[in-house]
């Protein structure tokens, strides 16, 4: 056979990957143009999970929006709750008591643990490291038990309220967290031994999905993807909120901007998050967990049934909703995947006039074609895995 007959055809092949593909956990479609196995062009189609979050929120009262925010990034619903509550409180001009702020820091970091463990575990198991996947899911399950013990729910928690949190920490919370973190650290050490210097894992992850620092900034990327390129931007450090400026923690940075650096950033952030929770638990002040303002906070049941003022406040808040003064504001927190911002517009009524979420993974999907161009089809799986796209947040 002559040599020219053995050459592979070089014409461009179009391939549609998704919207329901077993290797992309999430409903998303990639319209690929392939040259052999190389991706020449990738057009990302999102929106399969669009359910009109913004429009629904305009119909609900300020408090009724909180369960909707749970369903944005359901891997870190507590952070969404906290971000939304902080945005509305900024518009009201209220500051929650110190104990509430510490509790919010603790739950944010627990949610971040949950998010990073999900992301890394899933990405590892998609690359064949099923054992690591199961270990991380086990660690996640331990965190879920803390959240369940605290809020009564595992995933969509609705724990934070405007002006406080639903109730105080349970009495055995600190011991529960300490004993759980010992187990989580042991599991993570096992994962590290199995994975971090594993030849197969390294070959699939390092120098794949590279994005440069300038491009990452130009595409407005945030979170572990931006930090993996070496840009030191973490909302907790750059624009501190709650009590993050009083706590001692580091922001892990990468240098190459590839998938392996993203993975390492997330794994190191898990350690930092546990450190933050332990510090916050040590310093946890005593006091109320609600602001002292009957216009925004539901009165206790004894007051509702025992006094006319209590009954009136209860009726007003339930029937008309919290009255937020007219105005607009933007507040961002560091979500699991990056800057999670809430832009809130109020016309002075009981419902939001406009509620916009800055979804970090929607913006990351906007840069996906840049990350994958020139790589193999198989590289889509780890690159997509390390973005940790959550359909609920991306498509809203």
């Amino acid at each position, binding site marked *: 056979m002559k040599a020219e007959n053995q050459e592979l055809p070089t014409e461009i092949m*179009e391939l*549609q990957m998704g919207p329901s593909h077993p290797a992309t956990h999430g409903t998303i479609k990639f319209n690929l143009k392939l040259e052999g196995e190389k991706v020449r062009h990738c057009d990302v189609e*999102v*929106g399969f999970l*669009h359910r*009109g979050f*913004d*429009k629904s929120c305009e*119909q609900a009262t300020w408090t009724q929006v909180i369960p909707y925010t749970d369903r944005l990034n359901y891997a870190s619903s507590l952070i969404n709750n906290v971000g939304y509550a902080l945005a509305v409180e*900024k*518009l009201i*001009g209220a500051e929650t008591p110190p104990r509430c702020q510490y509790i919010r820091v603790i739950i944010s970091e627990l949610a971040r643990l949950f998010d990073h463990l999900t992301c890394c575990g899933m990405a590892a198991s998609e690359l064949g490291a099923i054992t690591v996947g199961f270990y991380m899911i086990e660690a996640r399950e331990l965190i879920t038990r803390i959240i369940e013990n605290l809020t009564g729910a595992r995933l969509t928690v609705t724990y934070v309220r405007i002006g406080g949190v639903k109730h105080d920490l349970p009495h055995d919370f600190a011991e529960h967290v300490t004993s759980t973190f010992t187990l989580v650290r042991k599991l993570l050490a096992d994962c590290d031994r199995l994975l971090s210097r594993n030849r197969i894992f390294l070959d699939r992850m390092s120098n794949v999905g590279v994005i440069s620092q300038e*491009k990452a*900034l*130009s*595409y*407005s*990327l945030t979170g572990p993807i931006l930090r993996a390129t070496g*840009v030191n*931007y973490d909302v907790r450090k*750059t*624009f501190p909120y709650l009590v993050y400026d009083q706590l001692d923690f580091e922001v892990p940075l990468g240098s190459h901007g590839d998938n392996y650096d993203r993975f390492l950033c997330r794994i190191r952030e898990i350690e930092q998050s546990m450190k933050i929770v332990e510090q916050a638990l040590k310093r946890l002040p005593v006091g109320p967990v609600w602001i002292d303002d009957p216009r925004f906070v539901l009165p206790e049941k004894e007051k509702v049934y025992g006094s006319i003022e209590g009954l009136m406040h209860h009726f007003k808040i339930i029937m008309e909703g919290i009255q937020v003064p007219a*105005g*607009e*504001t*933007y507040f*961002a927190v560091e979500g699991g995947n990056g*800057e999670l*911002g809430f*832009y809130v*517009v109020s*016309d002075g009524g009981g419902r939001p*006039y*406009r509620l*916009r979420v*800055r979804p970090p993974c*929607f*913006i990351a*999907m*906007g*840069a996906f074609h*840049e990350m994958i161009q020139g790589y193999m089809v198989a590289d889509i799986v780890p690159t997509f895995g390390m973005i940790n796209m959550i359909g609920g947040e991306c*498509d*809203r």
Partner: protein
Amino acid sequence: MSEISPQLGNIHAKLGAKILQSMQPQSDDVIILDRAGLRESFHLLKEQLSFDFLSDITAVDYWRKKEPRFEVVYQIASLKNRSRLRIRVPVPENDPVVDSLTPLWQGANFLEREVWDLYGIRFNDHPDLRRILLYDEFQGHPLRKDYPVNLCQPRVPERHVEGTFVDERSHNKLLRLKKSLAGKS
């Protein structure tokens, strides 16, 4: 409004007459910009005032509340100076067009597509202004305040993609659906 922050003072000095109004609600810096020459204004902000990071683009519909009806809202930040700035650009209903920021920040691509999709505001020189969250056949722009919440959209036939393998049965089903839809209208 008694005193403006030094940051707003700097911005005033650079942009001058382009600023229609500036304010500081809840200690945020907010400016309202003229949409004429918007890209040059952003270029100045990015290159000379080091607002190098585009956080977000969205819009608000003030239907029957304000004139002009729409406002496109930009959140930009300076990571070096650790400061944020919000820019609001009024856009009238009869000519809903603003300059695209894709030449300055590539991340504006997806964000502007979303604003186009949900609000129907067009962006000049956008490389690829298609719907993003909704499908091409969707009628109207759902985040406009005059779009009813419970409005149903018409059923659209399955899209035929050139050059793909088509299963005989589903193809026949597609033809039947097309026929029934054609019969209705």
